[in-house]
């Protein structure tokens, strides 16, 4: 049996395609039908997008979509914030590459990153132009994108040279930036106050989502611990809370927050309705995050807590250092899933009259000039939401693999 030297052949792409699409007669029929449908849909879409759609509705209202009625003379604050965000993003991104998780190789521009940078570049160049923004604003976007890439490059290149003590502080950048961002957005500390009722569009959506995500997480962890607690009162309290929230549609809870919160607090103490909605979102999401975290807690064997206790760790110490790190790792995908649906749920704010992205869209479409331009606006919103949610999902998967290079399923040889 004189066989040839080990030869690696892959079926040619064409042949593979043929096999995938026309493996059997039924498959062939299905493929043809699907291809025809896809083609028709694509044709229809492009005809609409190129000849019928009127994108002016977006360019004319781009500011409204971006920040709502944020006072024009104060918008420099948002530009500043965007610039800071871009810097922080570039810095963190570069440092992630400079210190890849164990097992991964360090490369200044891995393939994914080149893709991301290219997409970013194209978006930054093309989007502002497509929206027919003024040249000054276009230039700002180019500058910000350039800054991001520059920070990314610098951090990736010189990151390893940063002393370790200093590097530890870099994750703190984000909470700090959040606080700075809140001050920049709402005013105070010498800045003119801009009340929440003036925030709108993307700004409001992002603000609501991040606020709720940041707060619902610790709350959810507490609830999950409560639900697993041996103390009956804590356990039943958590169970009742979680099940009550999960049994009710979010819109009824938002409605409740808007209509009844005013009765529950002495006059004047009730927070602004924007904040009211934000709190309702937070409390709502907390119940779901609690369930996600609980599934992680269940996955941690009871022996872990026992071992920690027998080593003298108090219960809080054991939770923080032993149980939660393991539980949260397991719960990560489900938790991020909840964050994604929370981001989607911010659209419900439009049903209670807040001007989030969807609410802004509805306002814009009440403008006589743009009546009936539904499809264009909704399409863009859909793409926007889709990209954000998909990015969150991708990020969570990346984080998962990064956290888990040493899974217990890889025993030593």
């Amino acid at each position, binding site marked *: 049996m004189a066989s040839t030297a080990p030869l690696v052949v892959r079926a040619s792409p064409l042949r593979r*395609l043929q096999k*995938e*699409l026309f*493996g*059997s007669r039924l*498959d062939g029929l*299905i*493929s043809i039908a*699907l*291809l025809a449908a896809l083609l028709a849909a694509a044709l229809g879409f492009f005809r609409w997008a190129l000849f019928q759609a009127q994108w002016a509705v977006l360019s004319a209202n781009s500011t409204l979509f971006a920040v709502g009625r944020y006072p024009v003379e104060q918008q420099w604050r948002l530009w500043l914030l965007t610039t800071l965000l871009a810097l922080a993003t570039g810095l963190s991104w570069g440092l992630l590459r400079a210190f890849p998780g164990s097992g991964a190789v360090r490369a200044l521009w891995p393939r994914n990153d080149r893709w991301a940078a290219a997409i970013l570049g194209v978006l930054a160049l093309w989007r502002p132009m497509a929206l027919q923004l003024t040249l000054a604003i276009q230039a700002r976007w180019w500058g910000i994108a350039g800054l991001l890439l520059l920070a990314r490059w610098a951090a990736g290149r010189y990151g390893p040279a940063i002393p370790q003590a200093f590097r530890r502080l870099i994750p703190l950048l984000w909470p700090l930036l959040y606080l700075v961002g809140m001050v920049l957005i709402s005013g105070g500390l010498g800045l003119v106050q801009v009340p929440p009722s003036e925030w709108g569009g993307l700004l409001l959506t992002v603000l609501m989502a991040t606020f709720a995500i940041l707060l619902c997480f610790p709350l959810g962890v507490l609830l999950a611990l409560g639900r697993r607690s*041996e*103390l*009956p*009162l*804590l356990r039943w*309290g958590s169970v009742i809370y979680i099940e009550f929230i*999960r*049994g*009710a*549609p*979010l*819109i*009824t809870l938002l*409605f*409740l927050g808007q*209509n*009844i919160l*005013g*009765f*529950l*607090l*002495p*006059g004047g103490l009730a927070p602004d309705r924007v904040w009211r909605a934000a709190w309702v979102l937070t409390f709502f999401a907390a119940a779901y995050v609690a369930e996600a975290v609980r599934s992680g807690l269940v996955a941690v064997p009871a022996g872990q807590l026992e071992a920690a206790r027998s080593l003298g760790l108090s219960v809080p110490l054991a939770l923080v250092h032993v149980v939660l790190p393991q539980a949260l790792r397991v719960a990560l995908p489900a938790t991020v899933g909840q964050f*994604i649906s929370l981001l*989607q*749920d*911010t*659209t*419900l704010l*439009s*049903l209670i009259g807040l001007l989030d992205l*969807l609410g802004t869209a509805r306002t814009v479409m009440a403008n006589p000039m743009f009546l009936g331009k*539904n*499809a264009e606006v*909704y399409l863009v*919103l*859909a793409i926007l*939401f*889709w990209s954000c*949610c*998909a990015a969150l*999902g991708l990020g969570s998967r990346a984080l998962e693999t990064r956290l888990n290079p040493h899974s217990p399923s890889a025993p030593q040889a």
Partner: protein
Amino acid sequence: MTSRSEVTPWWRNRRYLPWLVQGAVALVIGVVVAFLLTNLLLNLTARGLLLSWSWLGQPAGFDLAETILPFDASLPYWRAMLAGLVNTLRVVIAGLVGATVLGTLIGTASFSSNGLLRRLARVYVEVIRNIPLLLQLIFWYFVVFLALPNGRDALQLPGLVLAKSGLFLGSPELVDGVWQAPLRFTVEFGALLTGLVVYTAAFIAEVVRGGIASVPKGQWEAATSLGFPPLLTLRRIVLPQALRVIVPGLNSQYISLAKNSSLAVACGFTDLYSVSETTLNQTGRAIEVMLILLGSYLVIDLVISALMNGLNGLVQLRER
């Protein structure tokens, strides 16, 4: 550890400490709840809105668009809310069936030998789950369904007419520019149902996919070696086993579909939430309306859970 000569201070006693912690938590919760309730009572008394249910018997004064229960403006509020509830149930039940069928099809399509179908199934799931349902509902209603032709231009098939005003079955006829038929579904219902089905199906598809993937590969191989064609294998061998994993996953998807049906307001369908909103606005009875609303959804959830738990018992039993 019964009698001790020296007394352990309570703050270090592991027997009492848990109760102290609980007591403290209970106290805090109690104080907060009491504070809120007093305010509620004070505020409601001040506005003359103390809990009362007699308004439920007063005539509603508004009409509802589509109801199965006959309704007109002279009937009392409770009838209006009941009509809304029935509409909610109608869309939930239809949605459950539709989403299950579509979701199962898409879930199984991701195991197809046809690469295109497989990828499209993935794309469907990834696209649909990442776009807010509310946006999708508004899209279906304002962009798709309201773009249907009307009157004489409506899509006509034997025994079926699809027009801007709805889907007409039976023997539809055009009376005075308006389609009439024994069986009709409005576009509001259609848009809500389509949105819910399309959205929930993406999640159900994932559940089904997970369930099928949980069946060992050897089961497919054994069936193939016995000469089973793929579809028969799926139906007789794989799906029955996958159900064990699928049914609990379906439960939560069903519940979220029921809750999501409350987004009906976005496309003009008169469901329970929409009627409640109108009622609240006409009567000012915020607390009572909220209680009815939350209670109703809770009951719907519980019923779905109970049914699915029963079903779960059945599919798990088949194992032994």
